């Protein structure tokens, strides 16, 4: 038979152990890390509100100089795209046409996304080599090329998040599929001879050969 006081002690011990388990949760694998430690990797920016945009600023004029050095070889002097590298300007009003041109100006819905993408991936051969001021400047120039920032424009976190892209309302979130519903007919599903509508695969000559690479 136990004394009352020892019962309290035992119960308190169990309580402490269960709190420790709750704090540890799960398997107790992994290491705590602070925001300061994560900072060099924590580069994502929320496209919608610019959350995560860093301090700093850059002008269209500064951006033009940097762009010519860092970007124009692929994207063309004015963002027109060199050869088959992506074009970055123009194309507004083409999204319903036979050959839509999906550029920053015609298609991208959120301006802060440009900063996020340029900083994390560009220049193509030296990603994450631009500092924040340089990135703001290049983004400023790209917006200027798309008539979304004047020639004397300067960009920082606040002004970038405030820019409304022309195609902001051009996206439908939420997947409407299945958007084709059909019954699996098994017999006599079609009448008449097969009509071939496209038969150029062989003659086009755009398919690589089956020979292995030497």
């Amino acid at each position, binding site marked *: 038979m136990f004394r009352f006081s020892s019962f309290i002690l035992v119960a308190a011990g169990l309580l402490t152990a269960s709190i420790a388990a709750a704090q540890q949760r799960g398997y107790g694998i992994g290491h705590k890390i602070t925001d300061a430690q994560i900072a060099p990797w924590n580069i994502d920016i929320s496209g919608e509100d610019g959350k995560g945009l860093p301090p700093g600023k850059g002008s269209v004029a500064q951006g033009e100089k940097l762009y010519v050095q860092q970007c124009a070889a692929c994207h063309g002097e004015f963002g027109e795209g060199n050869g088959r590298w992506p074009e970055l300007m123009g194309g507004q009003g083409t999204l319903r046409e036979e050959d839509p041109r999906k550029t920053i100006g015609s298609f991208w819905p959120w301006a802060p996304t440009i900063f996020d993408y340029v900083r*994390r991936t560009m220049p193509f051969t030296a990603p994450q080599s631009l500092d924040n001021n340089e990135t703001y400047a290049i983004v400023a120039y790209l917006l200027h090329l798309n008539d979304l920032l004047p020639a004397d424009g300067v960009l920082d976190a606040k002004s970038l998040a405030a820019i409304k892209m022309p195609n902001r309302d051009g996206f439908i979130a939420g997947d409407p599929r299945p958007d084709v519903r059909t019954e699996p007919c098994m017999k006599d599903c079609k009448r008449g001879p097969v009509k071939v509508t496209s038969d150029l695969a062989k003659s086009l000559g755009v398919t690589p050969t089956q020979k292995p690479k030497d």
Partner: protein
Amino acid sequence: MNTGRRGFLGRGLAAGGAAALVAQHPKIAAASGGLDGKPLEVPDWTKMLGPGVTAAPYGSPSEFEKNVVRRNVPWLTVSEQASINFTPLHELDGIITPSGLCFERHHGGVPEIEPDLHRLVIHGMVRQPLVFTMSDLVRFPSVSRIHFLECPANGGMEWKGAQMAGVQFSHGMVHCCEWTGVRLSTLLDEAGVAQGAKWLLAEGADAAAMTRSIPLDKALDDVVVAYSQNGERIRPEQGYPLRLIVPGWEGNVQVKWLRRIKLGERPWQHREETSKYTDLMPDGKARQFTFVQEANSVITAPCPEKPLKVKGSHEIRGIAWSGRGKISRVDVSLDGGANWQSAELQTPVLDKCLTRFRLPWRWQGEPVFLQSRAIDETGYVQPTIEQLRRVRGVNSVYHKNSIHTWRVNKDGSVDNVQIL
């Protein structure tokens, strides 16, 4: 000097070991192999020792299978680092894709990651931000799942018409592997999901620092943080040492070289979910977050790369898959969709997994329009290209999963065509 086999064998043994024998494996002259009425010959490889167990510590396919390779389409992309290549579906059997033949899609090339230096960070709307090493991650309870993984651009070159003269290029942005790792829900539980978190951002450690937003519901349902592929550590080009497996969803959300997961309230609206991987409709609006890969199928034998060489008995073979679950039936038509018969499905049929179908066939040299049509367990029926075009037009790039047509010609050659 005696250079015959007998003399070589004698010298080899005199030199003290069979290992010396194996370097030269002479090619024999073309033999009739009993097809000309003469007796079968005993080939050289039966009359000499082959290489031993130390010759190939990590084995490779036979040298006679050199043609079984991934191939790219040079005109499709402007660089080889932000590009894609294609699985040689016409050379494969069963449902598992050999790791070295899985199509590759990179946005900034393949990073060379030292596993001891690789880290996975989980932060954002969590109770306790955590960092994991690879040796941490393999200590968690593990799961293995066999799933297909498909780029949503698979078939996307043919919205306007047939142009690829081969199944490798018309359908080769798909593979199917066994993936082993830890459930993402286990890791999220370890960090503790904060109230209000609805989405996560997954980020790669590659030169594109590839990011995609994924709904938390899916993450907690069946997503795996994988470190192994087909039994061994993931191949570099498939995400070594760590990648997401998001069953049934488009390949680009299954972020490779995974280094960071951040929880938040809303999607991040990054480049790869706005400007790319969205489906432009005829009215100029683009569908966003179209994650699921709908049911699809294709016949891999015969196909343009594997024409019929003789009349008589053949087996029509192909693969089907659905991002919504199991394949319940595959029908095959020989007359361009007028009449259909159901094919045999290889078992077990697995969830969100390639499913092999087979149908015996006797071909007498007649022209045929071959098609396959997949039906999944939700009752969804693979549509025709015309049905898709009526709803989506021809500029949506992604998610073209229409019934495919091979025209088998009188000479047994096979063409990629589109028909009504």
